[in-house]
């Protein structure tokens, strides 16, 4: 689309050179990950919703491929090709096209083909320092490219994890809420269900079997499930084992007897999720919310405060930075710090840059263990529009 116009092409090339120069000078090696990627990695990691936004196709060998929808996963794969043991630090920068299907039709702010310029850092030893460095570098690059006025929105998925860990509830509920955090509507519905009627319907379940299950005897439950299936003449097919089915039944049986989530716990989670405040006030606000239980949040809040302090020391104007607890929910793979650079001309749904920490992604892509990772990318067409003074 717009990219193909020669006027834009020249300007984008010049802008890309400016951005990359900043990244390379900071020690981020320029790389060119593959444009065509195996679709499976993206679909497994990001989820099936991605297919609705990605150009997925099957090649003549029957392999399911896609045009990369962003450069983070491709850069992870490149890191693992170079360092299969994922045992060293690496800093990469890139500039290149990414592709998104736009269901509402492609437009200037949401083109189907756009260029991302960005950085990814793998294997850091100090998360707070690496988070701050990533954001500062993105801001520096934006400034070099001529962006004067911006606002920043930050979030911290780690704070949510800590808060959830503190709220009193069975582990299986915690896992479910964590799993659903990045889908606000589903999350809200689940929280409401747990705090009103946590019991799922057992009407369709074999009553005698449910009655016989002992929550403290998982192995015994597996035997009971196998016997039940055999008696009912149901063949055990597929990848899911009798043990997993027994675990599912035990959870349902436990939910049926569990008292609802305490109103205080639900209210705390609700209040946290609704938190929006100047970034420097956020730690205080969250401490106050958690009240006397805030000890459990200690490490996560300390990490947040230290990151803010590092940003201040690096000269980031924190009066332009807001904290939003909800933010970070739209992409499932973020695990900690998240940020978005906004400009008034484009509005909150079209950030000019964004990024965050994703410590679980490399393992999901094939690394033998979790690897600390943080990155950020610039939406270059939007940046160019803003720098040139255009509205849309």
């Amino acid at each position, binding site marked *: 689309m717009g990219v193909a116009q020669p006027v834009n092409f020249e300007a984008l090339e010049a802008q890309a050179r400016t951005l990359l120069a900043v990244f390379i000078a900071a020690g981020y090696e320029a790389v060119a990950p593959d444009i065509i990627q195996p679709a499976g990695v993206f679909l497994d990691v990001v989820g099936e919703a991605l297919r609705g936004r990605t150009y997925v196709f099957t090649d003549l060998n029957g392999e399911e491929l896609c045009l990369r929808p962003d450069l983070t996963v491709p850069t992870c794969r490149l890191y693992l090709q170079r360092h299969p043991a994922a045992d060293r630090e690496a800093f990469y920068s890139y500039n290149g096209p990414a592709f998104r299907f736009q269901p509402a039709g492609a437009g200037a702010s949401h083109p189907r083909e756009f260029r991302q310029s960005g950085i990814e850092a793998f294997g850091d030893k100090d998360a707070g320092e690496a988070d701050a460095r990533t954001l500062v570098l993105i801001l520096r690059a934006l400034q070099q490219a001529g962006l004067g006025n911006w606002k920043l929105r930050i979030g911290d998925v780690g704070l949510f994890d800590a808060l959830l860990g503190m709220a009193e509830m069975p582990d299986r509920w915690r896992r*479910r809420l964590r799993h659903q955090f990045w889908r606000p509507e589903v999350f809200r519905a689940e929280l409401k269900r747990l705090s009103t009627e946590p019991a799922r319907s057992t009407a369709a*379940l074999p009553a005698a079997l449910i009655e016989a299950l002992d929550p403290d005897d998982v192995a015994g439950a597996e035997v009971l499930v196998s016997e039940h299936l055999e008696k009912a003449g149901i063949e055990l097919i*597929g990848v899911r084992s009798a043990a997993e089915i027994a675990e599912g039944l035990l959870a349902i049986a436990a939910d049926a007897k569990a008292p609802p989530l305490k109103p205080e716990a639900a209210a705390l989670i609700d209040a946290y999720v609704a938190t929006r405040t100047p970034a420097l006030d956020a730690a205080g606000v969250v401490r106050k919310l958690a009240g006397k239980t805030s000890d459990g949040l200690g490490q996560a809040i300390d990490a947040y405060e230290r990151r803010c302090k590092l940003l201040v020391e690096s000269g980031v104007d924190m009066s332009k930075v807001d904290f939003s607890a909800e933010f970070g929910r739209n992409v499932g793979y973020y695990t900690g710090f998240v940020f978005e650079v906004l400009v008034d001309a484009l509005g909150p749904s079209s950030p000019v840059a964004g990024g965050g920490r994703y410590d679980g992604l490399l393992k999901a892509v094939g690394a033998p263990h979790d690897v600390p990772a943080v990155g950020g990318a610039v939406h270059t067409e939007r940046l160019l529009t803003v720098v040139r003074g255009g509205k849309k």
Partner: protein
Amino acid sequence: MSARLTFAVPSKGRLMEQTADFLAESGLKLKKVGHDRGYRGEIEGLDGIDVAFISASEIVSALNSGRAHIGVTGEDLIRENIVDADTRVTLLKPLGFGRADVVVAVPSCWIDVNAVADLEAAAVAFRREHGRPFRVATKYINLARRFLSGKGIADYRIVESLGATEGTPAAGTADLIVDITTTGATLAANGLRVLDDGVILRSQANLVASKVAQWDADTKKARDDLFARLGLSA
């Protein structure tokens, strides 16, 4: 030169026969033009209509592009293959044949999963155990995705399957399926069961009009003539 209306009719099998029967009930007779094995035809007594015999799935794309004005095809194919179908076509009349339900089916042994919502809890445990999301085998990629995300299910992965979909869970290439069924016998034979609220669409053949075809005075008149004979209002 007067513009002619293109009426797309399934080119083979039961659907073609049943379409001919449906038209015959209103006294309309489909006729091939030219070679008997050709793909062009007309309706006796209705000038201004070209009949195109094409496959049911191609009828969908002909209606979506406007190459055909009216056609007979399954609602499942319409909903699967046209993004935002209601802005592109109008379903005029269900025809009572070509019935098939598009359903979500899981292995019968998953006795802890009875409703679609149960998949969510199972998916969390499954990912922890196997390090991947559920795989859903289907040829109805869009229908499956819309239905599951509408029910709040996100942690799954679609595996496109163009045949023998019912066999994929037993073979281990998928964990559950979205497929069409008429009696459920094939599902049962493959150790599968439809979830309690797992019917995505009760589909049947429909008379469908394109909203994007060229509708001028001639084609509108041809349409009105056809509808009058079928007892439909325009």
